[in-house]
């Protein structure tokens, strides 16, 4: 077949597919109305990680803490959040009040020794919530386009703008307690930093990040995070260049969920209680749980990872170091997990 014949057939066949009219205008309206109603019904103010961070840095609850007399005085009011599924919203509505109260209590615990400690033998971890983070270099995370075959890491070695990187199999890199050498597994995940460039403005960082993303494509798809979330321009709090070379304000993170097996029915979903708690973390736009290992050959087959996406909003206090914002988000997710009875161990990577 010629290429034109391929495209003609692809087009013809696609157009011949008549999608079932599963939804009608009324259904879309109903869903929108339901969503809006749930959004409007906000029994407790949503927890903004920046607020939680500020509270944490103040040393937690004390007699002099205004929290003691005005439980939510420090919390930002709920803002318009991106749509989540109606199911998740409904779950959130049922469990929100109790969970938020518990989350607040959990976050009010003073953070003595807040450094990250990972590993199955340690207590649940909380990311460090430091008052300030040194501004560093843009960081990146890459995934091989073909995770089964992996990709060559030569591109990182050859890229002149890369200051440092490490690569391996995603399972090992994300494994708590350190990577286990697995020479037979494909190299399909990499993290690292671009060269630090003091005084560089946002546009320059964006250009560098975009060039890096393009340089390692198509074998690798990468996201580059600026060390700074820019508070000056609320409409573009980047530069954060994602795998499509698009500047976004999205941050992402992974949390270890050591005891997810408690709910065998939620293998691919989020535990309902955890979902409801996460729904109260304002700015958290997406999350999903993945198995840490389902193959049965590892030591912790029941463990899972929680992947989340967060929309940074300098207008809501998400300014300063990206690392710092992510630490706040991670702390909020940890608190939500603890409140839901599904402890999470969030870490920065």
């Amino acid at each position, binding site marked *: 077949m010629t*290429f034109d014949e*391929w*495209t003609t*057939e692809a*087009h013809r066949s696609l157009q011949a597919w008549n999608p079932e009219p599963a*939804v009608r*205008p009324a259904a*879309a*309206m109903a869903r929108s109305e339901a969503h*809006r109603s749930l959004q409007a019904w906000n029994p407790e103010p949503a927890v903004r990680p920046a607020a939680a961070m500020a509270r944490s840095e103040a040393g937690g609850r004390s007699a002099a803490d205004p929290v003691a007399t005005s439980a939510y005085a420090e919390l930002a009011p709920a803002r318009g959040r991106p749509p989540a599924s109606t199911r998740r919203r409904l779950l959130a509505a049922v469990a929100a009040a109790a969970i938020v109260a518990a989350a607040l209590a959990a976050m009010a615990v003073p953070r003595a020794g807040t450094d990250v400690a990972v590993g199955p033998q340690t207590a649940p971890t909380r990311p460090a919530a430091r008052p300030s983070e040194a501004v560093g270099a843009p960081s990146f995370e890459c995934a091989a386009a073909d995770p089964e075959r992996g990709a060559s890491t030569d591109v990182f070695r050859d890229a002149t703008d890369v200051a440092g990187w490490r690569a391996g199999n995603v399972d090992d890199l994300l494994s708590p307690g350190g990577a286990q050498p697995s020479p037979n597994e494909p190299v399909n995940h990499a993290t690292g930093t671009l060269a630090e460039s003091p005084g560089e403005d946002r546009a320059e960082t964006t250009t560098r990040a975009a060039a890096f993303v393009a340089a390692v494509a198509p074998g690798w798809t990468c996201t580059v995070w600026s060390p700074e979330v820019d508070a000056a321009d609320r409409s573009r709090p980047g530069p954060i260049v994602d795998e499509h070379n698009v500047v976004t304000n999205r941050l992402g993170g992974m949390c270890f969920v050591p005891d997810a097996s408690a709910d065998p029915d939620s293998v691919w979903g989020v535990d309902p209680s955890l979902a409801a708690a996460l729904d109260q973390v304002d700015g958290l736009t997406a999350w999903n749980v993945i198995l840490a290992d389902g193959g049965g050959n590892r030591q912790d087959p029941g463990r899972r990872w929680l992947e989340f996406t967060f929309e940074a909003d300098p207008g809501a206090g998400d300014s300063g170091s990206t690392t710092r914002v992510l630490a706040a988000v991670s702390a909020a997710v940890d608190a939500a997990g603890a409140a839901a009875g599904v402890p999470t161990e969030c870490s920065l990577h």
Partner: protein
Amino acid sequence: MGGTGRGPLPPAGYEAFFAAQHAPLARLAYALTGSRSDAQDLAQEVLVRSFERWSTVGAYASPEAWARRVLVNLVYSRTRRRRTEAIGLQRLRPIAAPRDGTELSDAAEAFWAAVRTLPPRQAQAVALRYGADLPAVEVAQILDVDPGTVRAHLHAARARLSAVLHVDADDQPSPTAASATRNPPADPTGHAKEHDDDV
């Protein structure tokens, strides 16, 4: 709801927009996801968002272009989230995923499956160009890039697809074709049939 006497009526123009755009959006989503259920969900999500913003979207010169852009963005946000999920799935159940398809022909399924292996921008360009049958200029508007960039993506995509699909050797793109692109044919209907003009 609308038509039942319960709830608000659809705003002016929305119902017609819905009727006209549901199927094209679902088809575009299917081309990019290969999942009928995902395609339906994504189309519905776009239509819900359209409804919520209809006072603005409905005033656009091309609400359907806005909807396609939202759809493309939604598809790849979802894809990115599911990439890690897929890694876990492969370990959990190392078997081929059940086909969640349509009644597309085998050739069409093969073509779109190959498209989904392309880099995101190339896949988006191909789906909009050959799936939605849009001229390169409109594809460029939806993807917010220059038409020349779209043609470059299409050219690169064609080269890769030709290899995967075993396209006749004498129909392979020449390495210099991208620099010799022409404007798409003027077509008052907005439909372009001479696909090769873009690649």
